């Protein structure tokens, strides 16, 4: 009995930021100031959600396209590379791997200026590809590192019969590795979806057109720097973040199903 009880306590603490966001998205700022932890004043400010929705709804589509294309690109490219690094011998493999791995050590804000200039020189400002291409590149290092580690943990005997039948590497990758790697692909997809969905700095520079911006940029627009009164934005912003998280919630529960299927169908063993 202590097991579920302990888990419920831990899960509650982990979930608290969401509970907090729900509570405060239904308040005015003075109500939040008085007590941010629970409902204290009435009535609830449902209008916060209306205002939030009006401002961000069109950005859903932009963000959905950018995020999905980027994440598919990351997984496709990184899993191919991960397979090669894990299972195909070729010269200078370790050096090439470390070169890619090294990108994990470069803080994003330092490359921001050269990257932004590059995107501009490619003529990709205000264009979805201006974000998608850098995101695909940016997701590689982490995903390849994780994929390589998992692919090299796959037991050799599951490949043996296929190899004896004369299967090529592409076949092995598509028929054996991919189906067995669904849990780790789901994990990597979740990490990247969350990161790209909420990214602010690069989109705020690349997507300058008002009618074409990502969710995070649209949400921060509530906070537009003002010497004028600006105390009303925080609660609306929370409402907007909650609205923006709804597609992610659906996606997660959908992906979780595959996570389990991958677990039970295959024999992932390290």
């Amino acid at each position, binding site marked *: 009995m202590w097991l579920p009880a302990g888990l419920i306590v831990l899960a509650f603490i982990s979930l608290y930021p969401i509970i907090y966001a729900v509570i*405060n998205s239904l*308040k*005015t*700022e*003075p*109500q*939040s*100031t*008085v007590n*941010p932890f629970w409902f204290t*004043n009435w009535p609830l*400010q449902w209008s916060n959600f209306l*205002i939030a929705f009006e401002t961000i709804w069109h950005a859903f589509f932009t963000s959905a396209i950018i995020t999905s294309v980027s994440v598919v690109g990351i997984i496709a490219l990184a899993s191919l590379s991960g397979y090669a690094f894990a299972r195909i011998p070729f010269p200078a493999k370790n050096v090439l791997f470390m070169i890619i791995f090294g990108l994990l050590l470069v803080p994003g*804000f330092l490359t*921001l*200026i050269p990257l*932004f*200039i590059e995107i*501009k020189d490619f003529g990709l*400002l205000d264009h979805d590809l201006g974000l998608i291409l850098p995101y695909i590149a940016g997701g590689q290092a982490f995903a390849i590192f994780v994929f390589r580690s998992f692919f090299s943990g796959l037991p050799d005997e599951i490949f043996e019969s296929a190899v004896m039948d004369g299967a090529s590497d592409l076949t092995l990758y598509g028929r054996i590795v991919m189906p067995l790697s669904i849990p780790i692909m789901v994990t990597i997809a979740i990490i990247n979806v969350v990161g790209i969905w909420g990214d602010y*700095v690069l989109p*705020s*520079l690349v997507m*300058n057109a*008002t009618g074409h911006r990502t969710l995070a*940029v*649209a949400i*921060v*627009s*509530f*906070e*537009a*720097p*003002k*010497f*004028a*009164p*600006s*105390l*009303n*934005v*925080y609660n*609306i*912003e*929370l409402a907007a973040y909650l609205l923006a998280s709804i597609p992610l919630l659906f996606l997660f529960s959908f992906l979780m199903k595959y996570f389990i299927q991958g677990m039970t169908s295959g024999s992932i063993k390290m």
Partner: protein
Amino acid sequence: MTIGSDDDYRKGDRFVMYRKITLAAACCMVLAGAGGLVQAKTAKIPAIHWKGTINFYAQSLTPVGPGIKQVSGERPLHALYDLSVQFNHLYPNVHIHFVNPAYNSSNQAVIANAAAGTLKDMMWNQYENYDFVFPQGIAYNLMPYFRQPNPYIPGNKHWIGVMNPSIVKETLAPGGQAYVVDGDWLAVNFFYNKTLFKKAGITTTPKTWAQLLQDCKRLKAHGITPGADRPSYDWWSRVFLGNYLGVPTLKKISSFSKSPGISEFDNAIAYYKGIINPQKNPRIMAWWPAMRQLYHYWNPNTTALPVNGSVPAGAPTGESLFAAGKVAMVFQGSWTPNAVKYTKGHAKFAVGSFPVPSLTGTSKYATKYNSSGDAGGPQAAFQFAISTPQADHAMNAGKFQAALDFLRFISTPQHDQMIVNEMGNMMPTFKGTTPIKAFRPLQTAMTKPWYQEDGGQYMTAEEYATIRSIFAEYVGGHISLKAAASQYSKAVATGFHQFVLAHHVNLAKY
């Protein structure tokens, strides 16, 4: 106190009429007497041959207009939009496009855009950023044009002649460049909750520092938090240093360079001469204990916040606690009454204000000089620059002329007053302007020579951040005065050293 509403240039019927007028033909506008145009007609207006659209990021002053909606809960502004329409009537080939105020104007974004050549044509930013943080060369030096006539002001010989000289000097970069036209003044004052003061039995506002502390004690005894905010070195240093140094010394500091006011250049020399060196002049830090006494009464959650950088939205701030009716007073910018007024769900109370009380008795160095107006300053909403072709590849000589002319057009006394008063949070600073009624008592601060002595905290951006942080640590009770003094001396010394190196100051001359 109500701020803004009585002085709206577009209020009521006048407003409706004005709207119709701006949409009507240009000739009708002249008859109806839309001010700027009448003046412009009488003066000789330059011809603009350039055609196209100027992108203008006006931050807080961004008007509602095509593509820009009013942010929830705020009052929509129209002045700049109306002026842009007037300008377009004068020059049908020139269009002004206002950038959505959500535009990312953080330092990081400005530098990245400048490096890529994608800055907006006209930009708001703090003059300190243009002078000390941003790379030099991203904005035009407007000083040569300050010395020329502004053709949109009848009979004007030098544009600079209608500006406040102390402010022009304060906003200059160390090399003498003027990157922004600065047209408004942020007044800083105590704003208080009349209901809470009454509840504590306080009937008159404090006239001396001792009374202020007495009132804090009283409020606290009644279970009311006296005040809230992050410790503000910027504003308090101007109040206390101005007073403790006294007018003769301030005049002396100001005289190191020719024009009135105090620039960082003056501060560097003053430091070199020991006037603002904390190790040589005991006055420089003698006011810190008084601040510690005051902040002792402030809401500790707000005084514990980091003083540099921004805190996450939703964190407790002076404004939010004040609007919620949770603290009795704030020492804040003149936007405060409007901030309360336009905050949804704010507590019901009347906002009063009082200036910094007399500093007599805060230490033996206090003088009679009333420095209450020296807090606040031109770090406000009307600070507009024009980007260089290097930082804005869409800029060129022809476009610059057009942008400069639009900047001249909006930077006349009449238009300055119209733009700034419409928002109702600041005071216009051009000569001959009148602030809204509520700010008129504060106007004297700008009409007298103005000495913003902050101890030279801006000599480098690093020093600026360090000093604010030391001050906050001291008033929060985390370090002793001795430790603070040693850290502070070191920070100013480093700032001075780097300033002299970076700007090739010839100290031997002084």
